[in-house]
């Protein structure tokens, strides 16, 4: 049974009518870490949508806590049903740092960027594993299903560094492929993701 108001279909066949105004930021999937070696979002699996349904996809990181001290939080992507997570990335990474003792820097972090690299891309630097330390932020991947252009991504994260620094990280780059991306994986460079939440949202479309 449809719900119709003043001639406009509000709900029908299990979905909102096309004429109903809704937000353009839609929660797709939440993954919660529990000593997890990786967290992966695979298009078409477990209700994950990561295709041409939305213009861009935003991953939100909530209190990602490493099991091992002084580790970078990272991501990689893959195509089709591949499981290698080794796509070619060219990226930039800079951050602003300030210690609890008052030392500050603003610098490009060459240790966190890639020039046609196939490794996992750093999103933080030296995340601390003290009980109260974590990292938060966002990674946005634009038009992952496009088959014409490379796939651009932009990220801003903030982490409590193992040396008791605040680190405001700015990362951006592109996955140098014209094949559609279908999957995204997150992990620390070493050790498990002890706890934390990653939420995937679809934007626009």
């Amino acid at each position: 049974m449809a719900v119709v108001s003043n001639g406009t279909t509000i709900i029908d066949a299990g979905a909102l009518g096309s004429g109903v105004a809704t937000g353009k930021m839609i929660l797709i999937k939440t993954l919660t870490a529990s000593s997890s070696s990786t967290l992966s979002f695979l298009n078409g699996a477990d209700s994950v949508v990561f295709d041409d349904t939305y213009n861009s996809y935003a991953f939100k990181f909530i209190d990602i806590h490493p099991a091992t001290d002084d580790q970078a939080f990272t991501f990689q992507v893959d195509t089709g049903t591949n499981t290698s997570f080794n796509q070619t990335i060219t990226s930039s990474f800079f951050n602003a740092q300030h210690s609890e003792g008052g030392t500050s820097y603003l610098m490009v972090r060459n240790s966190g960027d890639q020039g046609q690299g196939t490794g996992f891309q750093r999103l933080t630097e030296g995340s601390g594993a003290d009980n109260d330390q974590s990292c938060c932020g966002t990674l946005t991947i634009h038009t992952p299903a496009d088959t014409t252009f490379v796939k651009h991504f932009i990220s801003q994260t903030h982490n409590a560094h193992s040396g008791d620094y605040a680190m405001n990280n700015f990362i951006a780059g592109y996955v140098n492929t014209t094949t559609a991306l279908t999957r995204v994986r997150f992990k620390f460079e070493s050790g498990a993701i002890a706890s934390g939440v990653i939420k995937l949202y679809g934007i626009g479309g």
Partner: protein
Amino acid sequence: MGLISAASTIFDAGAMAAGFGGSMTFIKKLTASSSATLSFVDGSGGVVLDDTYKEYVFTFKNIHPQTGTKLFEVNMSIDTGSNYNVAKTTTNAEIYHAENGSAAGLGYVSGKDLANGTGKLKISSEIGAENDECCNGFLRLFNPSSTTFVKHFISDVQGNYNATFSINHKIAGYCNSTSAVDAVQFTFTSGNIDAGDICLYGIA
């Protein structure tokens, strides 16, 4: 009573089901009118700032100081606004360009950050008070009700510097407390917030 269409639950228990509607929920708007402070306190005036959402976004629209060359500031509270004095360690990067093109740059601003300081955090440059001058931007506060982790925040504010510069401040840091943050207050370094509004959103 729920509303189910083709076996899909659309509404139930007073809320729209997941996957329908947007994930960015408007919570509260405060409009300045020669206001000394604008405060968002959990449980007061319809404000929600607890574990309902994992991320909260404050948006700043045309924040205008009553007197010139004042910096827009924020502080947090862990006692529902009785005291705004949470220790914070923060970073401050600024990008600037003069209207006449005479100067431009990117740098770290050590005088406007905090190292476990409990004072107000400056999140803009010195904003001019001419009629057309103001600042705009946002502040994201992550998981404020956590009693395990420090509380991370990220801010990006663009403003006029005293009629002569465009200045963008990219600020982030953490409240160095494992107590729940339940109130946030905005001020200028001195003088009132003459005009502008701040909206609070929850990200589901």
